[in-house]
């Protein structure tokens, strides 16, 4: 497991798995898309718009997961003085911002036919919007220092402070009365979603996670290369 904290071992390990990972992610994505468009039923109330869910839910999950990983690596970088933690944090932030943006945009496309508005000031929606702003501030903060050593440490501190938002997003649908529905697949043993819809959703989640992982690995490798040859 040393490849998780050591840049050289990370490079060696990911040289092996990067190409298979890319092929695997493309195959899962194609299979997932086939399931989404041809092999899953229409919802009896929402009709065909339910298919937005298969993009919306995986990107929301990845937006949260990315921030969680960033928090872990920032804490490790500050506490144990592991420089690789800062590399991961700065490389992964734009990916998380993109997934949050995808989540918000698909959510508003879904909200217009179903709720009648593009946007409501609901707890879940607002907290995800705050997550997007957090990601943007992290990116800007990293670029606003001339000294890279200061920039990455200050950013790590901000990531840890900003991670207070994560449980608020996760539990906002349970704590407040929101328009957004609570999680449907929080309990895998008895999910409150039909198996014919659960199958494409899980496939798409796996595909999105693999794509995110592949992009993250490429960005981290580029970041390591950039720091070595500065």
């Amino acid at each position, binding site marked *: 497991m040393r490849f998780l904290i050591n840049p050289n071992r990370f490079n060696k390990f990911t040289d092996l798995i990067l190409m298979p990972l890319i092929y695997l992610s493309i195959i899962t994505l194609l299979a997932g898309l086939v399931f989404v468009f041809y092999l899953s039923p229409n919802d009896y109330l929402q009709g065909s718009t339910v298919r937005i869910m298969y993009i919306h839910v995986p990107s929301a999950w990845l937006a949260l997961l990315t921030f969680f990983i960033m928090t872990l690596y920032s804490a490790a970088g*500050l506490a144990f003085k592991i420089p690789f933690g800062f590399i991961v944090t700065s490389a992964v932030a734009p990916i998380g911002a993109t997934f949050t943006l995808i989540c918000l945009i698909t959510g508003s496309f879904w909200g217009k036919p179903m709720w009648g508005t593009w946007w409501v000031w609901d707890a879940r929606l607002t907290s995800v919007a*705050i997550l997007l*702003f957090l990601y943007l501030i992290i990116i800007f*903060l990293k*670029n*606003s220092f001339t000294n890279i050593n*200061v920039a990455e440490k200050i950013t790590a501190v*901000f990531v840890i*402070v*900003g991670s207070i938002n994560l449980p608020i997003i996760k539990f906002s649908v349970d704590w407040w009365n929101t328009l957004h529905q609570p999680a449907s697949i929080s309990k895998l043993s008895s999910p409150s979603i039909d198996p014919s819809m659960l199958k494409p959703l899980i496939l798409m989640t796996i595909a999105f996670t693999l794509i995110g992982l592949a992009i993250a690995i490429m960005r981290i490798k580029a970041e390591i290369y950039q720091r070595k040859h500065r």
Partner: protein
Amino acid sequence: MKTINSIIAIFQREFKITYRNFSDILSIFLFFLMGVMIFVFSIGANDDIFNQIGIGIIWTLILLTNNLTLRKFYQDDFNDGSLVIFHLSGLSYELIVLIKIIVNWLVIQIPFFILIPISGFLLNIEFFNIKIIFISFLLGSPITTCITSISGAMNLLNKKNFAIGSLIIMILSIPVIIFSVGLINTSEESMGAQINILMGIMFLFLAITPWVCSICIKLAIQEK
């Protein structure tokens, strides 16, 4: 004993600087009153509307005035090396941060207890609502001071992007704003719960601020 003496000395120094630079503080308060006026002009003088959104206006302006005080926290002391001198006199950075927070709360936030009723009368807010604003400000102002301190410590070496300090203040104070302004819309029974949440946020920030700020200040002094 030596520690207590140096703490008292720092307090005296801070108050002396504030006293000699008093027009600076006064212009911050003038900004607040001008902001109330601008809100009145931009919305139009309508007492019913102001009664509802007055607390929102006042809290927004408190946040903006906090943005103005961002550079007063550590920047001057950092530039002329006073922070290092404080540290050499035997105080840890965490204690210095705590002293700075207390001083800034006394100097910048206490006068708002006079300004809030004045702006309340200007906006024709009911007496009961002014009382609620008072309670929320009493609990919320330590939080905003802590947030300003975090942002000020983070941006000590930042010479490229001046807006980011204000952005950090704004995004961290969203929960404060939500629960403070939420006080006015809740029923009598659930008001206690909201106040408890605000107090929870306050103690959380009082606990983490010295730690976060001292990390940033140490880093800035090392890399200067």
